[in-house]
């Protein structure tokens, strides 16, 4: 029952969802002015990639894509920890999350 319903999802559904997530993430990254939101946007791009990979994995009938997904998720978690650390470090110094507030580096 469940299987037949899943089969009605064709590859293009996965790809479309993945692409939409990726593009929303990209646009958000470029437009947002809050470090946490910008970081979440990159995470959204990762999730777009993940959905694309899972879709292709199902389409090709091999597990490579899903294996890839596990590694992508791990790296995304490592990046999340890193991002939180950096953002907390900067927030304690500047008391704001607006990336425009930092202008030490100008040439």
């Amino acid at each position, binding site marked *: 029952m469940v299987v037949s319903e899943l089969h009605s999802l064709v590859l293009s559904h996965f790809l479309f969802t993945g692409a939409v997530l990726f593009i929303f993430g990209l646009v958000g990254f470029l437009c947002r002015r809050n470090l946490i939101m910008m970081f979440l946007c990159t995470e959204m791009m990762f999730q777009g990639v993940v959905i694309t990979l899972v879709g292709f994995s199902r389409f090709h009938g091999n597990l490579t894509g899903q294996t*890839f997904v596990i590694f992508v998720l791990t790296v995304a978690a490592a990046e999340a920890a890193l*991002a939180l650390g950096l953002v907390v470090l900067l927030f304690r110094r500047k008391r704001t999350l607006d990336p425009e507030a930092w202008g030490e580096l100008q*040439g």
Partner: protein
Amino acid sequence: MTESVILEKLATLWPEIIMISGACICMVVGLSPKQAVRRSVVWITGLALAVAGLLLVAPHFGWWAGETSGGAAGLATAMFVRLSVILLGLLLWLTSWGVPDLLPATQVAEAAAAQGRPFNPSMVCRGEYFAFFLFSLTGAMLCASANDLVWLFLALELTSLPTYIMVATGRNHMAAQEAGLKYFFLGALSVAIFLYGFSLVYGATGTTVIVSTQLQPVSIAGYVAGLQGEFPPLLATGLLLSLVGLAFKIAAFPMHFYVADVYQGAATPVTALLAFVPKMAGFVSIMLLLSVIGWPLPVPVMWVLWIMAAVTMTVGNVLGLLQNNVKRVLAYSSIAHSGYLLVGIVAGPTTSAGTLGQGLAAVLFYIVVYGLATIGAFSVLGCLRVNGEEAQTYDEISGLSRRYPGLALLMLISILSLIGLPPLAGFVGKVYLFGSAISGSFIGLMVVAAINTAVSAVYYLRIIGACYFGESRIKIELVATRAGRLSAGLAAIAVLVLGFRGGWLVEATREATRSVSVVDVDTQPQVAAPDHLSSE
């Protein structure tokens, strides 16, 4: 089957395993309550690098019957890249000798411990610094032996993630943390972009294996070979997105915005690392990805790379002219050099049999020479302090030759090699690189590169002018570390030696790329090409 793939692969990775273990030991040992033990992390790092280097060359000399096999790039390329990463890694190790000790937090914690109070491990990041240093080098080495997109992705991440932390914590200055943040965010963006590219490549081909081996007969290269010239748009888009994402690692055109800020903000020894290690990893990855479709590149890919190369070098050199800060100038020079290196990638292995016909070999040669020269220049800068801060502007290094003639000479050699003046190694590298462009009849690109080289001489000569003919108004001090000066000296000697007697390295790069240039065509029956994108 998979089992033997893993076993075969693991047996070739002893140098990397040693380095990762060394990094783990550094992490823990750096927090030891005993001061002598804590300080030993520097030596552990050096030891790990040296042992890894010996293990790498041991099978070659017959000292040890280790397994040797390369990834998609072939054994020789992987060997060349790994060995050069280790050797230049030793120079970088010398350069960053005292970096974590200079941080105020470390000094406070060490002073407290010296007075008999309990040592506070949360304030010191000596172990972390050297552990991340080793992780990053290991990542670059792993890129060279990749034969799988998953592997390549993880290796690239292993190269980059530690550098974000090194940038943010290597220096106690607001600018360093800002630089770390910028670097991290653009890095995360670039990773997402090339991952999307990888996922599309996987979608188009149904596999993540790059080149077929006996154990893994289905591969992307095999799929492309089965296409007979036709190129599905999905695969092209995937490769293109991967290239754009990788442009971040090599500091090339669409993703070059961070370079100047990050190089300026990071501690100078960290900057030296950033100029070489991610660039090496990025270029090796680009070579791997492009070797799948083979040279001469399909026309659209060729034009994309052509424009990337031309814009990258022009942007780097023109903006380099406008800077006042030597670290920023060297950052823009790093962008420009990526542009030159892309020329070699565009040309690729040509049909011409002469020495000058090998674009990829030229890339490998040039990247090593660039790495040596830039490590030399940054090491000299890293030795200098003005009022306790890093010396960065033209004014601050002005008159260097009168106070420290030796350092000024080392700077002179490195900078002249970066310009590409004979008889230094940079000249050989440029001849080799531009020669491959001529053999591949990319005359237009060659002309752009030549004009750019001439333009770049202006800002390089300004650095030399400041060192040799400037008035010294500001008092420059030396940081009390001999290792940095030793590193600059060794780099300068290497640049001189390679300039006069560089033939063996040219030969080595030619040997190294012989296998890349020929795309593996003798593959098994391929997966059926997905001709429409619906599963039912």
